[in-house]
Each structure stands twice: as C-alpha cells, then as structure tokens.
C-alpha cells in the first residue's frame, strides 16, 4: 500500500501503519514524515497528566467527544508504562474511551513507554507529528501518570492539564516541586467524592505562591464519568490557547519544543550510531578493561565515540 498517498487522502489504515513504522524507527517511515513535515504545525496539542487513576482517560474521552461534536478532528495518544523486565505492557486507557471507538472524527492510539523515561512513550512525539500531518485539529496526549519528575509533557504540549482527585492531599504536597509548575489548567476530577472542594482550595493556595507568569491557572472541578464540568475545561483550554497566542508565548513555546525535540533526536542518533559501530563483544571487552582498572570509564567513553567524530552518515 502507498502509505504516503494514504496519509494525504485521509486513510486511517495508512495513519495507523505509519505510526507503527515510525514508532519502530523504520527509515521508510521517517522518509515519508520528512517529505510531509511542512504540513505539520496546525494541530493544537493538549497534554493530560496527573497521578495514576485520577480519571485522565475518562476526562480525555469526554473532552474529545465534546470537540468532535463541534466538528473537530481529534487524535488521542495514550501512554502506559512498559515493563522493563519483559518489554510487555497492558495498555488500558481505551477502556474509558469505548464510546469514541467508532467516531469517524476521532483516532486513538495507545503506546507503551518502551524504555522511554519522562512520562511519554518513545514514539509519542513522532506520532504527534503524523497525526498533525493527517489533519487533526486537536491532539490529546495522556501521559503514563506523573510521579515526581516527569515533566516532558510540558515540553511537548501547548496546553497542559494537570488532573488531580480528592484524597490526594499528601501527594499534592509532595508534588509541589516541579510538577505543579507544569499545569496550565488544574482539574479536580471525581468531584462527586468527599473533599473535592478542599483539594481545589489547596491547589488554589499553592498556585498563589507560584506567580511565575501572567497566566493564573484555573482550578476546575469535574465529574468526568458523568460528563460534568467538561464544558468548563473546554472553555479553559480555549482561553489558554487565546492567551498564549495573543501574548506571543505560543510561538516561543513551540520553538522551545522544537529545540528539545532536535536535541532529543540528536542524542538518539548518536546512541544508535555508537551501538551500530560497536559489537557486543567489543563493548564487553571495554567493560572488562575498566573492571580490571586497566583503563578508566572516562577515557573509555571518549574512545567509543571516536569513530563517529567525523559525522553520522545517513
């Protein structure tokens, strides 16, 4: 099948296949994306993050459905952790998105993190570009669930929504450093449960100490499973979009994200170049020498990159 033509013609099978090939790092995929890269930049990227189980997938589903109702085309990328021991993963975010499966405006892709740290999957960024080329108006990216330092989503999305739930009191305290800064919008989901208002107030108070920009994040209460508060979140997204676009932050933010992307790709390229130029035996040999203290790891690390100093042949 002609994948490139399929992508241009809006064929969903081509879209699905191109994402697979790109996720697997196939050269044919990268060639197609390079040729069509000029078509990217039109989709608005929304990050959905927060601790495990707070309702990220449920909220994403409701927001996507609301946008679909407005005639928008939506891509969803849902990331879940890959087991570092087996390389396997259970990707379960779709359970909460069943109602969207047959919506012709919506395309959902689940991704295992495949060893990538930072809260997204190895192929998330490239999948975003592909969906953008395909013509999605909005792309939602659900992270694997933040712990302490996974702030990569803020380097990818235009608007980042931090989802929390009542009863996470201590967690919220612990998350203060780093994590709280990445939310452009805060959602307290499961507002049908006791303590939601208290949680919302705590977040509000914390945000008062956090005046890093002129944008004051909104705190919105939702009951995602009952579709309550969804329109408020949608309005907050649109408001934040308008704010960053009017203030010029949008353009500078996107440049910053492109910079991050280039550097990440460069790092990957260098790593893969090192690994192709170095057999397992050679590497083990070097490790042995260091273990015997014949050489030191600092010099060894310089030695193994020597062959690529002349530049990477692509």
């Amino acid at each position, binding site marked *: 099948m002609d994948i490139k033509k399929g992508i241009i013609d809006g064929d*969903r*099978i081509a879209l*699905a*296949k191109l*994402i*697979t090939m790109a*996720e*697997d*790092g196939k050269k044919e995929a990268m060639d197609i994306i390079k040729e069509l890269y000029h078509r990217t930049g039109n989709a608005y990227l929304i990050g959905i993050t927060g601790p495990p189980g707070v309702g990220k997938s449920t909220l994403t589903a409701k927001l996507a459905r609301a946008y679909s109702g407005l005639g928008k085309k939506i891509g969803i990328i849902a990331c879940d952790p*890959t*087991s570092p021991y*087996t*390389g*396997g*993963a*259970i*990707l*379960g975010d*779709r*359970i909460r998105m*069943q109602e969207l*499966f*047959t919506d012709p405006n919506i*395309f*959902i*892709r*689940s991704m*295992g993190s*495949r060893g990538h740290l930072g809260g997204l999957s190895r192929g998330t960024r490239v999948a975003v570009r592909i969906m953008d080329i395909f013509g999605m108006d909005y792309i939602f990216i659900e992270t694997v669930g933040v712990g302490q330092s996974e702030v990569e989503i803020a380097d990818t999305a235009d608007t980042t929504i931090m989802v929390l739930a009542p009863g996470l009191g201590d967690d919220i305290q612990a998350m203060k450093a780093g994590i709280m800064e990445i939310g452009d919008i805060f959602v307290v989901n499961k507002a049908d449960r006791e303590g939601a208002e208290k949680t919302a107030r705590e977040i509000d108070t914390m945000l008062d100490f956090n005046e890093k920009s002129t944008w004051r994040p909104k705190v919105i209460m939702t009951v995602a499973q009952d579709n309550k508060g969804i329109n408020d979140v949608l309005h907050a997204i649109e408001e934040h979009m308008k704010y960053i676009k009017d203030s010029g932050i949008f353009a500078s933010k996107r440049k910053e994200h492109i910079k991050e992307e280039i550097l990440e790709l460069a790092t990957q390229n260098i790593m893969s170049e090192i690994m192709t130029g170095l057999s397992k035996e050679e590497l083990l040999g070097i490790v042995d020498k260091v273990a015997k203290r014949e050489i030191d790891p600092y010099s060894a690390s310089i030695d193994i990159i020597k062959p690529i100093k002349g530049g990477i042949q692509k």
Partner: protein
Amino acid sequence: MDRPIRVLVAKPGLDGHDRGAKVIARAFRDAGMEVIYTGLRQTPEQIVEAAIQEDVDVVALSILSGAHNTLLPKVVQLLKEKGAGDKLVVGGGVIPPDDIPYLKSQGIAEIFTPGTPTSESIEFIKSHVRVEA
C-alpha cells in the same frame, strides 16, 4: 530492531465474564507483548475500529456467552471489509469442541478453551506472527 507484538484483547457482545480475558492479557504482557485491553461489551464494529487504529498484529477475542458462532465470524468479516484482513484472529473461552471447525472455516486461526495453558496460545501467536525487524 526488535519490536513487541501488538495484541488487542477484546470481549465481544453482552458478556460480563472478564476473568479469562484479564488472565490472557497479563500472560501476553508477561510474554513481552503490548496488549491493548478494551474492556467489556464491545460490538464487532468497535473491536475492528480499535484493531485498525492500534494497528495490532493479533485480535484476541474472549467469549463465554455462547454467542461465538455469530460474533467471531462477524469480526473477521468486518476486518476484511475494512482492509485489515491481514491480522491474526484467535479466540478463547467456553466454546464447545463441535463449534471449533466451523469457527476455523470462518477465518479464526485457533480457539483456546478452558484448561489450555496460556503458554500454548503464546507459542501459537509467536509462531504465526512475523514481526520483521
């Protein structure tokens, strides 16, 4: 580069028995596969759309309701209609041995009934899906 086999584990029809599907999902994960689990009560249309969007190599259907003779062939037929007939379709659950030949004639590659060790279905999938490097 070695990539994991991607499998959709789905439960077609009005069938609330999900223990087997969950056991299978975990076993496939532990065998190094990426398992997309979609939950209970899926229509064949929903299953096929999910299989296409996720670009899975395998569609694994778990069914204990007795409606296997209609629902499983329907999934295969829809996959073909939508241009996704290249996927391996396997089934499992409470399915009488007498029905298995019919299901196989309809394009379900293999059926795994209660008591079959999960290692058998894993072996079957690994030997029937070729994930090229």
